[in-house]
């Protein structure tokens, strides 16, 4: 058992140390200010880092409202005997286990080529939203379920309508749980690569991204660099990985702190 712990935590430690040591020489201002280049010494990741921030923001704005509203519907309103509500349940259960690259295929078929908005930031954000939506829904449902019924009954007894109960009592009480789940889902979206390869741009992007413009995200940029034979690009990949790890781990840290701080006992 101790061996299992050592392997798990040892690998984590070795991975972090190895990435930092390898990427350190290229972790400079240029990485944040310059676009990628075919000359490794001049290459940076500014467009990729910006695009990843945009993606994260849009995913947050889309996935949290849809996810929370779905959770409210399933927990507070839906009658489980109805077939359409069972279809919704089964869909979510299934979507949570669909490989992320399959979402990429969905994006390739519908968003990029079907509707034809092209390989733009918005397309990538829509697909990432769908990828993390089940995570947000499941976390929000758990948070809502942990609010005891006595709170609801108290509010009903005072004459509140159903929506007033949900909006003024249940949701405020469930915010910490929903926030934790949403941040974890967002950190997953930021680190996700496979679907973006399908709907994102693997192309060389030398300018700052816009909502409807070509883009490359930070994980995709790292993937691109790992494929280059020049060893400086390998170092750049590690430097990009440090930035990505910093973003993702910071979000996880915030989620953990939130969870510990606001854990409520009813």
């Amino acid at each position, binding site marked *: *058992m101790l061996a299992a712990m050592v392997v798990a935590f040892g690998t984590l430690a070795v991975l972090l140390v*190895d990435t930092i040591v390898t990427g350190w020489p290229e972790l400079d201002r240029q990485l944040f200010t310059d676009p990628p280049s075919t000359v490794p010494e001049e290459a940076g990741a500014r467009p990729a880092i910006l695009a990843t921030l945009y993606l994260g923001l849009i995913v947050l704005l889309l996935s949290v409202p849809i996810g929370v509203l779905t959770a409210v519907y399933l927990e507070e309103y839906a009658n489980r005997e109805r077939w359409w509500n069972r279809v919704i349940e089964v869909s979510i259960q299934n979507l949570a286990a669909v*490989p992320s690259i*399959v979402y990429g295929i969905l994006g390739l078929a519908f968003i990029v080529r079907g509707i034809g908005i092209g390989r733009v930031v918005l397309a990538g954000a829509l697909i990432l939203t769908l990828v993390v939506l089940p995570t947000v829904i499941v976390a929000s449902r758990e948070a809502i379920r942990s609010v005891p019924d006595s709170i609801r009954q108290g509010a009903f007894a005072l004459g509140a309508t159903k929506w007033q109960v949900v909006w003024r009592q249940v949701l405020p009480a469930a915010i910490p749980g929903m926030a934790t789940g949403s941040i974890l889902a967002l950190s997953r979206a930021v680190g996700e690569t496979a679907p973006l390869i399908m709907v994102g741009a*693997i192309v060389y992007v030398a300018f700052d991204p816009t909502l409807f413009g070509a883009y490359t995200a930070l994980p995709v940029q790292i993937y691109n660099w*790992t494929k280059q034979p020049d060893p400086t690009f390998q170092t750049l990949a590690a430097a990009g990985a440090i930035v990505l790890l910093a973003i*993702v781990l910071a979000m996880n840290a915030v989620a953990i702190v939130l969870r510990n701080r606001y854990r409520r006992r009813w």
Partner: protein
Amino acid sequence: MASTDVVARSALALPRKRIRWGEKLVQGLLFLAAAVSVLTTVGIVISLLLPAVEFFGEVSPLDFLTGTTWAPLFEPAHFGVVPLVVGTFMISLWSALVAFPLGVGVAIYLSEYAPPRVAATLKPVLEILAAIPTVVLGYFALTFVTPLLRDVGLDVEIFNALAASLVLGVMLIPTVASLSEDAMAAVPRDLRDGGYALGADKLQVSTRIVVPAAISGIIAAFVLAFSRAVGETMIVLIAAGQLPQITFDPRETIETMTAFIGATGNGDVPTGSIEYKTIFAVGLTLFLITLVLNLISIRLVRRFREVYE
């Protein structure tokens, strides 16, 4: 006269329920949000099925499922998916062999041995392992694990299934551990105390009472981890290579279904071509395999669930 009538009636009967249109509107909006998930599922099925049907109009499904050569971009093209499936299952099996014992070991430690405060500290760290972006893990497998394997004397290719499987296996430890631990936590204290009363030591109680009692959850964790491994893309794409061949030697370069999709779907392939349609045929195969695995996992949990009072 009329007003006393109204008063009399309202005193006798409960007031008729007023329809609150605001409440109805909210309920409609909530339902729309929930419908997004159903639409996504339908969208995935349609987006896979339509091009796949076109594909199977040009390539016979039998050739696809039984062919042992995968060379869609060569002339003459071969569309036998077996090498990709074998590659996928080899990676999944090896990574499950890594993740399963280690994950269950971690779960036993956290559930039975670790003091509560230690467990509370270790669990979030374990979650971090699951949160590492897979592109970083793939890079780590390629640039650290593969050279390490060579240093210890293993004759591995630059791109090899072993390094990818090892890293993927470690990535899956938190999944196996957290589900197994949930199952072990559900085993009632009485069973453990009964074991101790019969003179069993902690290891015996853990391995002969708690683990068997929690076996349904542990098996479900194993199947889920296997399914995750089947669907994982970046680690295998970066570290295991793109050489579709039927081999069970993990030191070799291989190609998985996900790696093929990722390598082919990046935009160079013209829409409507047969190469473009192969993405969807392989994607459909992948989708069905993971679907079956997930159904098995759900079914296992139900069938072997022990109900404790």
